[in-house]
């Protein structure tokens, strides 16, 4: 009765790429900014997982720009690794650039073939195989939702 299930350890390692596990173990940008311009918490209602994103913003240009960013989360490796990569990618970028990147990331998670060759996604490519596990996609997008809210014009 055992071992007749199609997937095995290869599938597992494809899903939990080393980059994901590395970011989970040693997350970038974890913490809270003291003088934050915006703090947003999002929750995945299915599992109760939370992510909080704090940002400091530069509003001098035509488009608001992320000066600095931190996240906190009690979530799974997928949500933490995604948030960790997000802090690297968002720092110094404008709201418009971040919105485009978020959409592209969502395309990748949906299994869009073109997105898997999109170099702008950088380390986020490690999540490409998540399209086979749709139940976990909200985990990968949790912190990005918080960031989008934080950048929404007041």
């Amino acid at each position, binding site marked *: 009765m*055992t071992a007749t299930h*199609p997937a095995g350890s290869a599938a597992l*390692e494809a899903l*939990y790429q*080393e980059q994901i596990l590395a970011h989970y*173990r040693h997350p970038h940008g974890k913490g809270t900014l003291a003088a934050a311009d915006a703090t947003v918490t999002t929750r995945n209602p299915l599992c109760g*997982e939370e992510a909080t994103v704090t940002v400091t913003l530069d509003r001098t240009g035509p488009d608001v720009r992320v000066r600095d960013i931190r996240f906190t989360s009690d*979530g*799974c490796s997928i949500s933490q690794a995604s948030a960790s990569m997000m802090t690297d990618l968002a720092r110094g970028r404008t709201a418009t650039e971040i919105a485009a990147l978020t959409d592209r990331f969502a395309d990748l998670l949906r299994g869009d073939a073109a997105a898997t060759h999109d170099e702008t996604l950088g380390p986020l490519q490690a999540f490409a195989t998540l399209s086979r596990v749709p139940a976990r996609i909200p985990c990968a997008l949790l912190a990005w939702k918080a960031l989008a809210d934080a950048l929404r014009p007041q």
Partner: protein
Amino acid sequence: MTTVMTRRADFPLLVRQPGLHYLDSAATAQKPAVVLDAEREFYETSYANPHRGAYALSARATECYHDARTGVARFFGLRDAACLIFTRGTTESLNLVATAWGMHNVRPGDEIVVTRLEHHANFVPWQQLALARGAAFRIVELTPDGRVDIDLLRHAVTPRTKVVAVAHVSNALGTITPLGEVAAIARSVGALVVVDGAQSAPHMAVDIEALDVDFYAFSGHKMGAPTGIGGLIGRREILEAMPPYQMGGDMIEVVGDERTSWNVLPHKFEAGTPNVGGAVALAAAVRYLTSIGMTEVRRHEQTLTAMAIERLGALPGVRLYGPDATRRSGVVSFTVDGIHAHDLATILDQEGVCVRAGHHCAQPLLRRLGVSATARASFFVYNDAADVDALVSGVRSAQTLFHGPRVVSPGTPARPATASR
């Protein structure tokens, strides 16, 4: 080694998916062929709207519905079958009581008592009733091993307590609540006892007359019946004194232009065309369980639970929640150091093992345990030792993936995985 007999062959989904280790029966149970056959047979031979048509087929459907109620009542040892109301399940049953009884009997200054173990379905309706009626809402805390603390319950219950609402068995930890003690305490102040039986009805013998509680709610889908059918068992005097919950067809006696009188039990609480097919299937499900014997169901699950507790507990870094196997049903809730429950569930899924990960609709409990999520394996009649093997081996795969192939000891910081690709 205890031999554990499997009834897997009775369940078509499990027969079709031989590699599947279904360990999520606390969420919902797979369906035996006899239930699917009974439902189909009913629709193919006896289906019409019950209670309405003046023709033989409708009379036949009415009889099937009536027989289903009698059969399910007998399963619970209920003598007066009219005190079994068919509902969509536990959630609807508990809302029925909290609304139809609660809104008319709970007054400002009264007290409502629940426990820290409750599923949201037996927590939120009472919390909201308390808010709506200006009553106090008390939560009885647990012993360290996750049982309702009876001493704390004794202190929480006062002459102002109108209702004590408790889970017979916790879905998150499996804890079995000693209902006799709870009922005695509630009885001493004249409070009602409302029991969430969602996790006891499928897994142990329930003799409703012996339990001496006022309401007992259950869900058919956790017992092998389809979704959308379940029940509420209540005391006749209380049900008769209560106003209806929903208004419409079937539940009326005479509808005047200004006033309406209510139908007799159980119809007063069954507005609209009932789920006859579901009731027929539920009756088949309880026949199936009876053919095994509820004592045997309990023994079988207890064996697997003890096995899982022992084998998971032997793995370094695994934390188990809840009491020992004799005081819990077939539920094993656990966490693994350094691995979030969701990751664990995804990894187990890759090996064909279905477990639930999350708060199990019991956020007040998980907050108190100090975890945001646990993984939960739960057993039913079709599980066997191979399912426990697969669970344990899946947890070890997860540890290997996250911590590397060597044995991890609790508290050791996670090491980078030694990639074996």
